């Protein structure tokens, strides 16, 4: 558990420290220098420069800020929505449960990537959104978060529903009910704390999944739009330059890989800690 935490912490700290690094190098991630393209490592550019002469290290850190922000924001939002749906289905039962779980099953049973590409390519202007909003950088970020949430809430919903079904039969919940506690009070004070453990594990794992999804969409040109960089969009530029500058393609991919594997290992370690009885973990 220590290694993935250290790795994630180091990547996040470096990404957060981007402005400091930029000040130290007297550059910013989007400053173009066409006379200094594809430069090798030097004191001024520790990892060299890209096809527009931008500093590679700063671009990577900037991309990390974007990718990590999207990953964490979308994972938390999906967990919150999934929790609300799961608790409602598990605690209220009856037709609410049936309806919500049908919806969850339906979303899970779809070929998600092709459909996400349709959603990602939608022209918001045709929905009446003014073009300066539809084409803004903030919308391109929000759109990815929304897409990740759209498919990500189902895991949390199923987990929380299952845990709620078990917990609501426990004696302390019955005791609270017989003391006249309201539904909301029971949900927040008694049910939620007991579904926290699996939820934390699932959310940690989903951060990695979402970073992968973001990188794929950005790679296909449907995610983060220039001049903003993410690891995925950096790879999309690098693909065309693979002959001349293969390292441009190696760095961002390696960072995606390290971040995602750290999230997965951390999730697995948390699972082992929360549930030491279960040796066969999936």
């Amino acid at each position: 558990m220590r290694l993935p935490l250290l790795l994630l912490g180091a990547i996040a700290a470096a990404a957060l420290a981007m402005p400091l690094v930029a000040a130290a190098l007297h550059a910013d991630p989007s400053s173009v220098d066409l006379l200094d393209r594809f430069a090798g490592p030097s004191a001024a550019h520790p990892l060299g420069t890209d096809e527009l002469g931008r500093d590679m290290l700063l671009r990577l850190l900037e991309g990390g800020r974007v990718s990590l922000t999207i990953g964490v924001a979308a994972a938390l939002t999906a967990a919150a929505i999934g929790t609300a749906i799961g608790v409602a289905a598990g605690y209220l039962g009856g037709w609410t449960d049936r309806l919500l779980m049908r919806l969850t099953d339906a979303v899970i049973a779809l070929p998600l990537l092709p459909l996400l590409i349709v959603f990602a390519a939608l022209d918001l202007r045709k929905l009446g959104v003014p073009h300066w909003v539809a084409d803004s950088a903030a919308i391109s970020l929000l759109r990815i978060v929304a897409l990740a949430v759209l498919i990500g809430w189902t895991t949390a919903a199923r987990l929380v529903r299952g845990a709620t079904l078990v917990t609501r039969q426990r004696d302390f919940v019955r005791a609270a009910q017989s003391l006249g506690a309201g539904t909301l009070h029971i949900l927040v004070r008694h049910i939620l704390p007991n579904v926290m453990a699996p939820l934390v594990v699932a959310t940690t794992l989903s951060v990695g999944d979402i970073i992968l999804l973001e990188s794929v969409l950005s790679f296909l040109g449907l995610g983060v739009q220039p001049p903003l960089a993410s690891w995925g969009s950096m790879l999309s530029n690098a693909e065309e330059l693979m002959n001349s500058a293969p390292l441009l393609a190696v760095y961002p991919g390696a960072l995606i890989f390290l971040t995602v594997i750290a999230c997965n290992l951390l999730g697995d370690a948390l699972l082992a800690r929360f549930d030491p009885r279960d040796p066969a973990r999936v």
Partner: protein
Amino acid sequence: MIRFAAIRLVEIAAMLALMSFVIYGLIGLMPGDPVDLMLTSDPHLSAADVARLKSLYGIDRPLIERYLAWAQMALSGDLGYSRLFSAPVAAALLPRLANSLELLGSSFALAFLLALGLGIAAARHPGSRLDAAINFTAFAGISLPTFWLALILMLIFAQGLGWLPASGMGEAGSGALLDRLRHLVLPVATLTIASLGGYTRYVRAAMRDALGQDHIRTARAKGASELRVVWHHALRSALVPIATILALSFGTLVSGALITEEMFAYPGMGKLIFDAVMGNDYNLALAALLLATAVTMAGNLAADLAYAWLDPRVTYR
């Protein structure tokens, strides 16, 4: 169980009808439309021509009316004409579907066999160094971005060593089969590595569960050989969850290689869906997305049925 399957089939049909409407509506919201495309390619078109073309293609009518017209045609077997391929949609789809099945089928078989070996090896010695190594490798496989893996493989084997072609499917002619196989190596390797980690973890978990059961202890106590215990007794009960994941994977056979196909310019269904969506080929995108949805849902149904068929304790009402 027949009743269960029948109900599910009706549900799938209803879901497909719903999805066809949703996708139909969404595709109309893509940037540009076919008439805009004609307009950019021929600047001499007048406003009157545009209006005439729009009414010819029915773009000026309300969404629900257009959808119902499409649905009526589709139900009578006419999926329309693909602009990108200049061919009827079905004629454009079928060869691509065959290519995808070939690519995904071979990588799936390869990944599954490898996962079976690795998963069982890890499960037999829980907590050992071998187990830890296999588990870590599986995690690494799950965490690799597929398109990056494809890039790196191309970089090494196509560009660096020059052993294999980086894209396409090979030409017809003499030595065509060998050429085709050479074109398959990198995409199949990419897909296999990308899916191996997940399968291995699944097999490992299922086998560990199975090896911990009472009847395994009984078999060992009777003096059955370790080989027989693992491959006969344990694998039999582990097959139930493994068959489920197999059936679920069937659902990804059509569109599951979108990224890989796009990277290697392999003419399969995934690349077709991407190109059709990006290229405003409404008819083709709609049919391809619906086909992918139908196969995915059929895979899920197959998983449920396999589960009930293999495990007599499971019954569906």
